[in-house]
């Protein structure tokens, strides 16, 4: 994938309109695949559809609702009631008598396109900020430097052409919509549209709970501004460079008040919190309206968040929890549930402290961690964090093990169907085959997260070193 990116980037530089050709061709590719979706049978792959994102379960929930039962009756549907009202009618559409998911697929294609466009927007802002900071630090002289890659275009194309995204879109899992909500939150925060950011965050949390941890990076984004090198560098740089033409909020603040303390825009954050409350209220009211005849909100929280947190469904997926909780002794079940969920929360604070100056990157790391430690992960989550990773191609250019990781992801995604087939369909393998694959996937994700974090920290160090060298030379 990284190789492809490189090639794509080369072509990008030559012709800016290439982006649109690639984007359109990805949409066409999806549409072609959708016409064969019946034969591909992707929607039943455990890698694509988890109990939370499966369209079949959604259709079952909708059927139960139509039969004037609670959609959560039975243990089929565990998603949001709003999604049920949105997508449910599309699942019963019939073409030539056969139930067709064509309309659903189109919704997912549109969601993918929107996500890509929003990612492009985020990338453009980040690219601008990167160029600006580089000039402020005196690393790059000209404003139109060729060394800075158009990370927005790259991220959008990585998102559109990532096989994981395509598989999720064609395989009719609801993760494109969850991803769209997450990207919407980030885009809102990057472009400082506070209501949009709050809406995205609330919807993402409502749909899959885990994006709740994105509150921290979004608040940082709104409070401190876009990703930038550590503030200390600017302070050191200012001693050297007398004039400072800045538009970035962080450097502006730094100019006005030369302290080591980064200014925090409390007003925006309070504004954001207010909007979060407004949107949450809306979501809660809408949910309670749609479930008023049945179990109400209590049942909804029990069947969605409770289902996520208590890992009741032990059907195999690409995570490791299903097998762990199928095998662990009942006595320890609660203990391990707590340990694994707290594992996500434990890393939030250290990461937030260390990467405070790079809130977008922090959001990416949080998403990667949550996709690693999710109860029911799918490749859709990987697709999201991989495309966010592409936003930082400039910073993470010298990331270690990138080829190894690329091969690892490729190998796991090829081996996973094989192992599943051996175990489930042929019966010649056993559960350990598939679990081993899942463990391998978890390890690759861990290496990916750790290497990304250390590459980013090394990049900051390199900037620092470069900057100090620069100073020495000027002195």
């Amino acid at each position, binding site marked *: 994938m990284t190789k492809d990116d490189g090639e794509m980037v080369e072509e990008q530089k030559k012709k800016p309109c290439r982006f649109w050709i690639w984007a359109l061709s990805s949409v066409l590719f999806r549409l072609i695949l959708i016409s064969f979706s019946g034969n591909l049978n992707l929607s*039943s792959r455990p890698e694509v559809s988890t109990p939370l994102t499966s369209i079949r379960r959604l259709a079952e929930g909708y059927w*139960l609702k139509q039969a004037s039962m609670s959609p959560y009756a*039975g*243990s089929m549907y565990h998603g949001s009631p709003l999604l049920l009202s949105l997508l449910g009618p599309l699942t019963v559409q019939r073409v030539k008598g056969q139930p067709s998911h064509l309309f659903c697929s189109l919704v997912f294609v549109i969601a993918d396109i929107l996500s890509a466009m929003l990612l492009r927007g985020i990338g453009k802002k980040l690219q601008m900020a990167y160029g600006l900071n580089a000039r402020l630090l005196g690393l790059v002289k000209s404003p139109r430097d060729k060394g800075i890659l158009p990370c927005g275009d790259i991220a959008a194309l990585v998102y559109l052409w990532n096989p994981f995204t395509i598989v999720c879109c064609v395989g009719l899992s609801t993760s494109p919509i969850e991803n769209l909500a997450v990207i919407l939150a980030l885009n809102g925060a990057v472009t400082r549209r506070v209501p949009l950011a709050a809406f995205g965050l609330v919807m993402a949390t409502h749909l899959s709970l885990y994006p709740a941890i994105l509150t921290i990076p979004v608040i940082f984004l709104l409070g401190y501004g876009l990703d930038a090198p550590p503030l200390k560098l600017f302070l050191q740089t200012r001693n050297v460079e007398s004039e400072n033409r800045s538009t970035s909020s962080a450097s502006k603040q730094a100019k006005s008040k030369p302290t080591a303390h980064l200014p925090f825009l409390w007003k925006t954050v309070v504004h954001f919190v207010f909007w979060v409350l407004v949107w949450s209220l809306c979501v809660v009211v809408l949910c309670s309206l749609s479930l008023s005849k049945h179990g109400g909100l209590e049942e909804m929280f029990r069947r969605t968040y409770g289902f996520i947190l208590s890992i009741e469904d032990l059907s*195999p997926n690409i995570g490791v929890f299903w097998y*762990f909780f*199928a095998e662990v002794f009942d006595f320890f079940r609660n203990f391990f549930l707590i340990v694994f969920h707290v594992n996500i929360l434990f890393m939030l604070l250290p990461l937030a402290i260390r990467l405070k100056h790079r809130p977008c990157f922090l959001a990416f790391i949080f998403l990667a961690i949550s996709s690693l430690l999710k109860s029911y992960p799918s490749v859709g989550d990987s697709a999201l964090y991989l495309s966010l990773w592409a936003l930082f191609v400039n910073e993470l250019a010298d990331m270690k093990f990138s080829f190894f990781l690329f091969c690892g992801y490729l190998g796991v995604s090829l081996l996973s169907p094989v192992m599943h087939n051996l175990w489930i369909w042929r019966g010649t393998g056993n559960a350990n085959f598939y679990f081993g694959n899942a*463990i391998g996937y978890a390890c690759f994700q*861990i290496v990916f997260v750790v290497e990304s974090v250390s590459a980013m*920290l090394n990049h900051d160090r390199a900037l620092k070193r470069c900057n100090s060298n620069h100073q020495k030379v000027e002195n």
Partner: protein
Amino acid sequence: MARTVLTWWIPLLILQSFLLAIAFGSNEVEEEFSESLLLKPLPDRKVLAHFHFENRAPPSNSHGRHHHLFPKAISQLVQKFRVKEMELSFTQGRWNHEHWGGSDTLSSMNAKPVGVELWAVFDVPRSEVDTSWKNLTHALSGLFCASINFLESSTSYAAPTWGFGRSSDKLRYGSLPREAVCTENLTPWLKLLPCRDKDGISALMNRPSVYRGFYHSQRLHLSMIDSGMLLEQSLTVVLQPDTVYDGKDLQPSWSLSSLFGRKVVGKCVLAKSSNVYLQMEGLAHPEAHTLLKNEEFELSIKPDRTLRETSSVLFIFDIDKSSDSEPFDLSLTWKLPSKWSCQQAPLHASRFLMGSGNERGAIAILLKATESQDKLSGKDITNGGRCRIKANVFQIFPWYVKVYYHTLQIFVDQQQNTSSEVLKKINVSPSADKMSSGMMEMMLELPCEVKSVAISIEYDKGFLHIDEYPPDANQGFDIPSALISFPDHHASLDFKEELSTLPLLSKFKDKSLVRSYTEVLLVPLTTPDFSMPYNVITITCTVFALYFGSLLNALRRRIGEEERFLKSKGKKTGGLKQLLSRFTAKIRGRPVESPSSEPTAAAQSSVLSSKLLFKIILVAGVAAAWQYFSTDK
């Protein structure tokens, strides 16, 4: 010797019963017991034997808690759990609807699903029904030496609303297809009879011959009626008479002694009536004058009465006259080949699984038209001249078969039908994981000329926790039988003569719903590796430790210091020496003089790093000192 003792005992028992009769003579209603045996040759060269025992007790308040004939264990059940009606059946083998009959009373009452089936209606408030059910299963489990207590968990029983044929919200239904039925279940069942299997008709129940049969089903039906309690116990056995094939295509001839290896020696003295019936179907000349002297077959004993029904003839034998010297040994000898067919249900139901692999599949119920349908189609012209067959389907799904009800498809004559045309009513209660089993009730209304109806529904196979698998996990899991009933069709024997009060016949004369159970399905589920729990726990925890440790390490690492440390290590050989020099440098308050090629960068960051190193060394020193002093003491 034993025979002489018995001959002494019988008059004594009779005397005792007389005395009891005198003692309670003032009471109008008495406890009654009657026994009967129905024999029926089947078209496929087999013989059906249906034992029926009926035990009536007046309302319990008239006699207090004392019973003469009625089993005390059962009356205690009724008192304790307020059972209004209950039926328990133990079955082995599958009833062959095509050859043994599908729409007569015998098959609709006694063709039961494999294993144990229990349903009960309670007379308690609705909230207490489940508790009563649980207690009842435990009591019955102990009473019949069977694992009926497995029906206690909410994942194994259901509360049918209308699909079962009995509308009551206090009805609970459960079945255990896996239960192996054997003599250990028959013995406690026989213990409920006043004469056990020592005397009367029940003496025929020779265990080897009963369990050698193709089908046996022991049933216990308890109901509260106006005149007290009614306990019906019946055992239905399908046996193959031992005959050598003579090449003439004759039906096999048999006698009671050849079928059971025993003979009836007198009736149970406590029984009010004790009869043997022989039902002959498909006779060529069912006129009365040809029945006894005919060319087709010959009976060894002259029947006491002969009853004619629309399609069959019933010979009634009284076994009062038999005695030790002259045991009752009915035999039937065929003289001419004879062929007939049984009454069939309007549709023949079968059920099968579709799909392969252990991830998902589909259950299909296939209803096929039978020969009798042509006859029915003339009869049942109802609404608007269009002939319709109504069929109810009642099906329980265990929770690990996760059914997608929206995938329900109905094919009428191999053409997919939009549900509303055929499906008149559907009631679904979806299963909750590890909480409750799912239930589906459907009412189909089919045109009479229909040839086949297929109902298919898709499901995902669940993945269970390692402890939830039975010891033989790879054998698979059973889906209980579906029940197909035809609410417009009733089975009853229509006698031309007026009947005296013969219990079995009056039972047969009552209309009963035509119903048939489908096969039990065996679903193989994926199994985890049962030997792996420790490995899985350790490997998974290692992976998470790797994640936590390496990420935390990446976050707190200082690259500059490490580079310096490595350089100084490369310069100075001794680790202790280096440490000492560092320590002295710290004490002097001066940074370590590092002879690196770029001293500027090192000097810049050494202030910070030396501070940290100093802290580390200080902590280490404190720790070492503390360790030293603590061990010294």
